[in-house]
């Protein structure tokens, strides 16, 4: 571990690694196959066996998707899958919220685009947004009226305009971006619920899944940071509390905590408080659960920051609080971005456990629509589950790609 004692004396800027070039020499395909797939009898047999398995699996999958699947179950229930039992009269609110989020995302992407002018990095940006665009197209391919496509186009247009605006904003604006994102999330929530909008207990489907995930991420992160800091606090009481909390939560499976939470959270509230909705209880449990895991990651990050950093901060007179939040935490968090994002992706997928305590999020609705009169008992879970799985994958993969970019950007020119 780097304690600042054994740092290399002079740190020259590291030149960017050469792009890897495999197989500069052109190998004829026939030769390549012979050298790599049939270079011994055993390899030949393995190639044939696995080749057959792969081709067969691919064939079955493609046949399912394009021939045998009865996608009308998804088509007929697309709105259900997207928003669950959300009142249809309030759907404009959802589109408004999407528009608000599109503004923030567009501004962010636009501001970031100033740093990348080369065509290679443009291509990179396109590649990065590809999974999300494919996901959007797949969803739209199940619509029965042109309205959703038109509204989607409108949202994308808003994002595009914001992109243009973002690329013209002054540099110092990009530092405020995280603030803009948080503000946009709150504004979107208000658009959904303010002035008589349906509360989160009436949301469902993919909307509920993403909302719980976003809420979970936004709120578990500060909790994790505080617990991680508390674990290293110089106050024994704070330290003991944090260690105890972390170890207890990490010792119990999430599904158990969800059951406990769904039954008991109301019991801990002072009298006079109403028992919160099931969604709120589930969300609270997810936040408390993820916070404990994030805390351990944050602690690892804190330990990776050399003591010399704290000493230098003290030496210029920074208070302990400022030392932590301006010097130590930024470096600690940057060092653990991959792990943090992995935990956020886990959180996203863990929201499917809410189906088990009776919430109708994406997985819940995918199951529930199989009991509709039209589709009951026809063995259509393949279709609905494949669709749900596809949405989970698109979301998680997009998160992972966004994280890679963040990591690269924060790593530039430092250390």
């Amino acid at each position, binding site marked *: 571990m780097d304690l600042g004692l054994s740092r290399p004396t002079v740190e020259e800027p590291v030149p960017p690694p050469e792009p890897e070039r495999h197989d500069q020499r052109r190998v004829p395909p026939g030769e390549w196959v012979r050298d790599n797939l049939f270079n011994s009898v055993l390899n030949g047999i393995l190639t044939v066996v696995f080749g057959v398995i792969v081709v067969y699996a691919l064939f079955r999958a493609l046949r399912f998707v394009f021939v045998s699947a009865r996608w009308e179950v998804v088509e007929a229930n697309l709105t259900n899958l997207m928003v669950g039992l959300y009142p249809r009269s309030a759907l404009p609110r959802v589109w408004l919220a999407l528009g608000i989020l599109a503004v923030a995302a567009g501004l962010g992407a636009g501001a970031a685009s100033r740093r990348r002018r080369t065509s290679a990095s443009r291509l990179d940006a396109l590649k990065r947004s590809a999974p999300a665009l494919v996901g959007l197209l797949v969803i739209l391919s199940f619509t029965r009226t042109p309205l959703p496509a038109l509204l989607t186009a409108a949202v994308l247009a808003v994002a595009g305009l914001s992109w243009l605006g973002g690329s013209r904003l002054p540099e110092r604006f990009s530092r405020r971006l995280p603030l803009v994102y948080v503000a946009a999330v709150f504004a979107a929530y208000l658009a959904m619920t303010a002035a008589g909008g349906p509360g989160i207990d009436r949301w469902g489907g993919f909307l509920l899944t993403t909302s719980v995930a976003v809420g979970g991420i936004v709120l578990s992160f500060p909790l994790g940071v505080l617990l991680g800091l508390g674990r290293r606090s110089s106050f024994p009481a704070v330290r003991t509390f944090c260690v105890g909390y972390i170890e207890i939560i990490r010792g119990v499976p999430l599904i158990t905590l969800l059951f406990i939470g769904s039954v008991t959270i109301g019991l801990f509230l002072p009298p006079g408080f109403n028992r919160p909705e099931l969604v709120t209880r589930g969300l609270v449990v997810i936040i408390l659960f993820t916070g404990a895991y994030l805390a351990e990651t944050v602690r690892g990050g804190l330990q990776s920051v050399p003591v010399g950093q704290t000493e230098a901060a003290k030496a210029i007179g920074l208070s302990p609080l400022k030392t932590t939040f301006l010097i130590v935490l930024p*470096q600690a968090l940057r060092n653990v971005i991959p792990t943090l994002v992995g935990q956020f992706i886990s959180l996203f997928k863990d929201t499917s456990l809410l189906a088990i305590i009776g919430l109708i999020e994406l997985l819940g609705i995918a199951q529930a629509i199989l009991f509709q009169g039209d589709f009951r008992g026809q063995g259509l879970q393949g279709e609905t589950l494949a669709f749900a799985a596809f949405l989970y994958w698109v979301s998680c993969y997009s998160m992972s790609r966004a994280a890679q970019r963040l990591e690269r950007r924060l790593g530039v020119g430092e250390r």
Partner: protein
Amino acid sequence: MTETRLDADATRVGGTGEAMIVCEGVDKFFGDFQALKGINLQVGTQEVVVVIGPSGSGKSTLIRCINRLEKHDRGRIVVDGVEMSDDVRNISEIRREVGMVFQQFNLFPHMTVLENVTLGPRQVRHWNKRKALELGMQMLERVQIPEQASKYPGQLSGGQQQRVAIARALAMQPKVMLFDEPTSALDPEMIKEVLDAMQELAESGMTMIVVTHEMGFARSVANRVVFMSDGQIVEVGTPEHFFTDPREDRTKLFLSQIL
């Protein structure tokens, strides 16, 4: 042992004659191990004191006690009339007046050079941004790297990083600067640029305590040289005294090893 330590030189004040730093009977323990044993030292305003001595003799510990990176266990430390106590207000007052430069630079890698330099003025002295930036650029010009202002520390050479570290400390407009082996982590060809910056600083009248093995610097810049061994100040004197006629055997042995 103690009789040789407490000679007149140890407490005599150089520079303008007013004491900027006073250490009286300072003891420091790490567990059972005593790292500082009854240190008496006064440093005058505008004086440059170079501290030499073998590794582990307590040089770092001594100067780290002066800005409370280490807490001394016994004795008094007074900086510019403020006595070091457990009171956090005292500590932060002293830290505002005392700049420090470390062997490993300890620049903040997630901030640009200019952000490193302006952090103290902005966050501790609460200056507005314009004023802080102006002063920051001034300090970078003083150590002759204004053109690196928007780079990150990781993109600079060791010598440049150490000069940024000096600028960062100076930006707090301290009355005292402490240097803990500022050139020991540098490649030989970069040592001079850092020593030059320090010499310029000394000539401008800054009060300085410098722990270093650069005897050339000690000879040409120091008002007094302090030799430490085993947590004690063994001998104090002018550079001429040290390099021509050291009195103590331990001093002679040490100098014969490094010269």
